[in-house]
């Protein structure tokens, strides 16, 4: 059996565990989907008049516009929760068992991220369904939906990588959990919830360069207006950038952990 095949099996096994863990505890899963849904309803109902603002992009409804933001929130929370799960594994000593097995380190992180990806997938499907139920159209139809789903799932994994890096570095679930407000901050400083042109400084300036803005716009495009190659490309690049960041941080954290024990 080649090394590669073994590694694939390991990732699959850890991935299945991670996915099972995620969906077996609905009370932990719920906040990742319920809170953003609540916020979606509230923000749509409260700030929906925004569509009448001069300069607001043409949309079918504010709900249609906001779906991407809700998905962004969920994927960020999913990434955070993946980090927490890994930190719990570390606290429990489960990762020690994995570290002392003859498997490459990256399989451990990758396996964990499978759970995060599953959550991202679930969240994207959930919000697309919510959108359709409440009358929002998906402009680019099935293709558009698939693109949105793919981007959200990939972004969830990417953010999960950062969460995993923090977990590996700190080994503490409560620290990772405490970073949750940061998740909100980063999202508010992006165009997840509002068109960048209409945001207020200095948030506007920060959002212009925030990689999450590119992801959000990549997810939103197919839903609201159509599939745009540039937008899509920028979103993918942004995700890649986050992935790279996560990998670099994770690798360093792993080295640190093995040194420190």
């Amino acid at each position, binding site marked *: 059996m080649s090394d590669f095949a073994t590694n694939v099996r390991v990732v699959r096994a850890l991935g299945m565990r991670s996915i099972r863990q995620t969906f077996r505890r609905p*009370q932990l899963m*719920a*906040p990742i989907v*319920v*809170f953003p849904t*609540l916020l979606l309803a*509230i*923000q*749509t*109902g*409260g*700030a*929906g*008049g*925004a569509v*009448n*603002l*001069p300069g607001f992009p043409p949309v079918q409804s*504010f709900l249609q516009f906001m779906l991407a933001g809700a998905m962004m929130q969920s994927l960020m929370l999913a990434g955070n929760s993946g980090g927490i799960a890994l930190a719990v594994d570390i606290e429990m000593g489960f990762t020690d068992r994995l570290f002392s097995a003859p498997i490459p380190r990256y399989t451990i992180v990758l396996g964990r991220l499978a759970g995060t990806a599953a959550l991202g997938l679930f969240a994207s499907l959930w919000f697309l369904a919510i959108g359709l139920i409440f009358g929002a159209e998906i402009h680019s139809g099935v293709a558009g939906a698939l693109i949105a789903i793919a981007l959200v799932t990939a972004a969830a994994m990417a953010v999960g990588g950062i969460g995993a890096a923090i977990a590996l570095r700190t080994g503490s679930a409560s620290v990772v959990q*405490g970073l949750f*407000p940061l998740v*909100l*901050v980063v*999202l*508010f*400083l992006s165009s997840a*919830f*509002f068109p960048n042109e*209409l*945001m*207020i400084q*200095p*948030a*506007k300036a920060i959002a212009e360069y925030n990689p999450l803005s590119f992801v959000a716009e990549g997810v939103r495009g197919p839903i609201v207006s159509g599939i745009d190659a540039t937008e899509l490309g920028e979103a993918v690049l942004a995700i890649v950038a986050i992935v790279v960041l996560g990998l670099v941080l994770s690798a360093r954290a792993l080295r640190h952990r093995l040194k420190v024990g």
Partner: protein
Amino acid sequence: MESVATLPQWRANLATIAALMARAKNELLRVPGAAIPGVLAPTIFFLGLNGVFGALTQLNGFTTGSYESFIVPVSMLQGAGFTGAAAGVNLARDIEGGWTDRLLVSPAPRWVLLAGTVLSASARALIPATSVFLIALLLGAGWPGIAGLLVTYFMVAAMASVAACWGSALALRFKSQSAAPLMQAGMMGLILTTTAYAPLALLQPWMRSVAEVNPVTQVMDAARQGFIGGVSWAETWPGIVALAALLAILGAWALREMRRTAV
């Protein structure tokens, strides 16, 4: 052999409430960093809301040109909701750990035990409220005047009591900290399905209907007065009535749950 040296009941009650409030402050003063989440969350929300939705003031019919001024009371009340719900989480933790048994086995009346939790939350809510208020002033929100500020702080303290009753009722009902998300989400829903993001006329139709029946809308409008204009009794008393009604209903529920927990 029963003790002869006991205080008259009303003095004993006051002393008990004071002692329970003194204990509650340990949470903030003796646990490093404990105050941070309670202050951070509403402050972040304030900054975020402002940066994201600030352009809404350009809409026809918006009651002020300054979104900071408009949403200051939202974040202050959110801080109150968060603090009150957190009091419920602490109570759930105390129940799980057995501490609450000590209180229930004493002859202190049940409402006195509840009052200790609720009043502590009221007092604690002033901390995030002040943090949000100061940051808002820095960002250019209008000075509400002394009367406006007093009204707002009063609404904040009372809202925290309402949230604490809600959190306590859930804690006593489920006896578990896993009810925490429900405590937080409930208050968030209550406070934001009001004139939080925009004036009544500019809300979407379904949200407008909800806001019209939601008592916290009165609280929100009362708390907002000084920031967007002048303070009047006509705008203030509906908020007081709304808070009194919420306190009566949720307080009664919490008390009932406390009585059902023990004999």
